[in-house]
């Protein structure tokens, strides 16, 4: 049975990282009047792609009337996340450069490597739809919403883990 604990742990203490993320939310509220969140940026980028293919159709969609597809604070935040993680991994010698995580191969065998990409795409589709319906993701609901004591955020984050628990168990423990 694959054991997630046999692979490398975090470079820094999770308490230090969590506390610094907590401080980071204070900075984003104070300097940008924005909560930390990642998922809406994907929707905006998708809307920009949609606009380049079907501009009239995209602009008529109710969601994009509220969230204009454009490069703004959140899209820059998302780009920054990629860059920041690269810097951290490079600095700590943790760059992976791999198409398939070792734990996936250990569980499903090398012949299932292509399925990893398929699962990632399908998972991404379902996750983004769920995030938009729920109103946020692990950052927007899971950190920014819960810390403001939002009832919907606490419900959403528990549902994230329930859905994830069942799926991960079917994949790795069934």
């Amino acid at each position, binding site marked *: 049975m694959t054991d997630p*604990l046999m692979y490398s*742990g*975090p470079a820094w203490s999770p308490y230090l*990282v*969590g*506390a610094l*993320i907590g*401080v*980071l*939310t*204070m900075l984003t*509220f104070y300097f940008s*009047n*924005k909560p930390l*969140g990642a998922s809406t940026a994907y929707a905006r980028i*998708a809307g920009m792609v949609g606009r380049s293919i079907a501009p009239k159709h995209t602009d008529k*969609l109710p969601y*994009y009337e509220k969230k204009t597809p454009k490069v703004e604070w959140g*899209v*820059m*935040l998302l780009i*920054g*996340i*990629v860059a*920041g*993680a690269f*810097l*951290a*991994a490079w600095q700590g010698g943790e*760059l992976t450069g791999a198409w398939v*995580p070792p*734990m*996936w191969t250990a569980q499903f065998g090398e012949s299932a490597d292509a399925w990893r990409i398929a699962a*990632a795409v*399908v*998972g*991404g*589709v*379902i*996750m*983004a739809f*769920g995030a*938009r*319906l729920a*109103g946020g*993701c692990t*950052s927007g*609901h899971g*950190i*920014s919403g*819960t810390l403001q*004591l939002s*009832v*919907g955020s606490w*419900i959403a984050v528990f549902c994230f*883990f*329930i*859905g994830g628990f069942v799926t*991960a168990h079917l994949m790795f*423990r069934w």
Partner: protein
Amino acid sequence: MTASSPANARAASIGNSDSTRQLVLGLLFGVAFGFLLQKGGVAKYHILIGALLLEDFTVMKVMLTAIIVGSVGIFALHALGGVELHLKPTRYASNVVGGLLFGIGFGLLGYCPGTGAAALGQGNWDAIGGVAGLMVGSYLYAEMSGTLDRTINKWGDRGKLTLPDIVGMKRSTFLLIWLPLLTMVLYAMDRFTVR
């Protein structure tokens, strides 16, 4: 909050989210967030799957600490008139159904939207598939948003509902109970989990 409060005035002075200043700030905050996510190990596939299996508690420790510190910080800044709150609406049906779908996607992808971007940054190329999927799924939602707004998004819509509202407490009183409680959960997690 009235429109003339100091927090509103400050918020108004911040201006548009696509001003040059805000674009630069967004990028800088993103770099900091991505750096922290990677150092916290939560860009790693096995750590995120380990969280969903309830075998690796790194994710929960990061999140709970961020919630406790962020809660103290945001409500303190709010009390001092420095920031506006940004409460997402509570919609029971959408929160539950969307949340469960998100979770299923989380299991399949192994990353969430923020940690997926961080995974991509550290060189997990499978996250490219995830990013593509996230964009397709977002557009699919936008495509259906008219219907969803008229149906499920209305079911159990309670607006900006908070935990102290539900138990009928003042926010400050609630926090005096809630924050020590979360800290105890975090302590128990530290005490009784391997990682």
